[in-house]
């Protein structure tokens, strides 16, 4: 055979460099394939995106309530900025791996991914990420229209905006890993996505999608703001619109990292155990 054999690569530094190079090429190839798929699915993606416009509904509600004066430290314009940012953050940190995993485990379609020498979760991760340009392309005009109608947005300072990409990446990774954890339950349960509905219910209330978490009553707000829901949405939103500063930013990033470590360890353990009980139904 013309290909280099695995044996010839060895486990030394050269072998590791080759493995890294190969991984980068696989990621690139998965990205290209997934982007082509996302373009092919653009209409269904738009439809799905319209079902995640909850922050815009919240915007209409809270902006209306704030007509008579600020609520807490949020004036009408603050609500507009907050919820438009929340809408866009939700778009860029979206994942749907829970449904994909559940359906593939139940139908046995996971088998074809398991037969490739590439981790199936890398495949799913790239599928989610490659849809990003399409999602942003579809979501950005909606955000811009809302902002123009509502009169603009106040962004955070340069420092906050510099770390915002890191916060967004961490938020996506938390969302992805939570979904992998729940999706993996399909190895044992018949309908793990029903459990995800519970997660989504809590997420809508506790993440900041329904109202900024800082507006919760004192005591409760402190608790809500350390939960993973806030780390996945509220924190990056507040960072972008300049609602957190200095040590609060460091604390928010640390909490995100902590939740990510926890969920990724759990997802790895569930995946490893799940694959061992996988029934691979169907021929």
């Amino acid at each position, binding site marked *: *055979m*013309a*290909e*280099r054999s*695995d044996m010839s690569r060895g486990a030394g530094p050269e072998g590791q460099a080759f493995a890294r190079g*190969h991984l980068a*090429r*696989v990621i*690139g*190839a*998965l990205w*290209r*394939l997934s982007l*082509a*798929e996302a373009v*092919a*699915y653009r209409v269904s993606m738009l439809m799905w995106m319209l079902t995640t416009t909850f922050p815009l509904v919240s915007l209409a509600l809270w902006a209306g309530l704030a007509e008579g004066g600020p609520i807490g430290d949020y004036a009408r314009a603050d609500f507009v900025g907050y919820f438009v940012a929340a809408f866009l953050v939700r778009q860029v940190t979206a994942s749907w791996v829970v449904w994909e995993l559940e359906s593939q485990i139940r139908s*046995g*379609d996971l*088998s*074809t*991914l*398991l*037969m*490739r*020498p*590439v981790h199936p979760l890398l495949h799913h991760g790239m599928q989610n990420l490659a849809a990003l340009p399409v999602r942003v392309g579809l979501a950005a005009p909606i955000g811009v229209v809302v902002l123009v109608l509502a009169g603009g947005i106040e962004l955070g300072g340069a420092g906050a905006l510099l770390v915002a990409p890191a916060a967004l990446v961490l938020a996506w990774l938390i969302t992805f890993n939570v979904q992998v954890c729940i999706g993996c339950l399909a190895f044992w349960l018949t309908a793990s996505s029903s459990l995800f509905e519970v997660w989504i219910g809590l997420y809508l209330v506790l993440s900041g999608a329904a109202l900024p978490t800082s507006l919760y009553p004192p005591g409760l707000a402190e608790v809500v703001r350390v939960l993973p829901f806030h780390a996945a949405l509220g924190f990056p939103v507040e960072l972008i619109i300049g609602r957190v500063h200095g040590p609060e930013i460091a604390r928010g990033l640390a909490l995100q990292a902590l939740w990510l470590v926890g969920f990724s360890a759990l997802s790895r353990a569930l995946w490893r155990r799940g*694959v*061992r*009980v*996988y*029934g*691979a139904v*169907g*021929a």
Partner: protein
Amino acid sequence: MSTVVCVEGLSKRFTVPRREAGLRAALRALVRRETREVEAVRELSFSLAPGERVGFLGPNGAGKTTTLKMLAGLLVPSAGEVKVAGHTPSERRPEFLRRVSLVMGQKRQLSWDLPALDTFELNRVVYEIDAATFRRRLDELATLLEVGEVMRRPVRQLSLGERMKCELVAALLHAPQVLFLDEPTIGLDVAMQLGVREFIRRYNVEHGATVLLTSHYMEDVAALCPRILVIDEGRLRFDGSIEALRREIRPLRRVSVRADALPPEAELAAIGRVVEKEGGRLVLDVEPGRVPSAVQTLVALPGAQDLAVHDAPLEEVMRALFGRAEEARG
């Protein structure tokens, strides 16, 4: 003899939920979930040499697909040992996955809304196939399977047969050393079945790959596999050639003839067992040693024509084998 697949005492048990029909049973299952153990594969042992083409036969639920999935690393065995190309499949190491391929008639690896060519390109990178080798193999496979244009159309627009051919290309681009085929011709028309069958044979001969195949179509197995493994209720019932199986289960040869006038039943009984006697057509099952004399007698019939001697059809052999196993179980 060197082996590429070695299976020793392989078993697989599944725990499956069990409940009666009806609302009462459904409510009871909420409180107390009953399960039972199903032994899908029991202490299976066999080995395959490099380059062998082996058919895996058995009735529905015999454990064929479960075994294939354990060999491919999709299922973890409950007991026993499996080595494929020197690896333990359930560890699913990349070096193992690069050496094998599993084609399932009802599962697809091709991206549904994109041309198959896009998935081939992904596999080129995943399996680290250099560009020149990829082009050569793709040309070769596309020519053999006649999918030159087909692979440029979105997969969702392809017929079942075209899709299966593209699945085969995707599964073989990395030139696997061991090829597992689970019902590769299911749902295909006869012409397409023949095409896929011929392709598998050529691939095996030209690449020296080991092929293990399950199929409901006995013709697939009879035409492709010099050796068959027959399993029933998870146990190995037979391992050998189709001829050996026939000799063991249905040694009688089937002799058929057309004639203007047929001898009476009593006379025919002396030649062999009458299977069919209708109009001028006669079919007899004859002991192998008595075939020459039977042919002599039948060819001498008035207006004798279309005399033919066949082996018993494989379907009948299998029915007889499983019927025998049923009887043994009482």
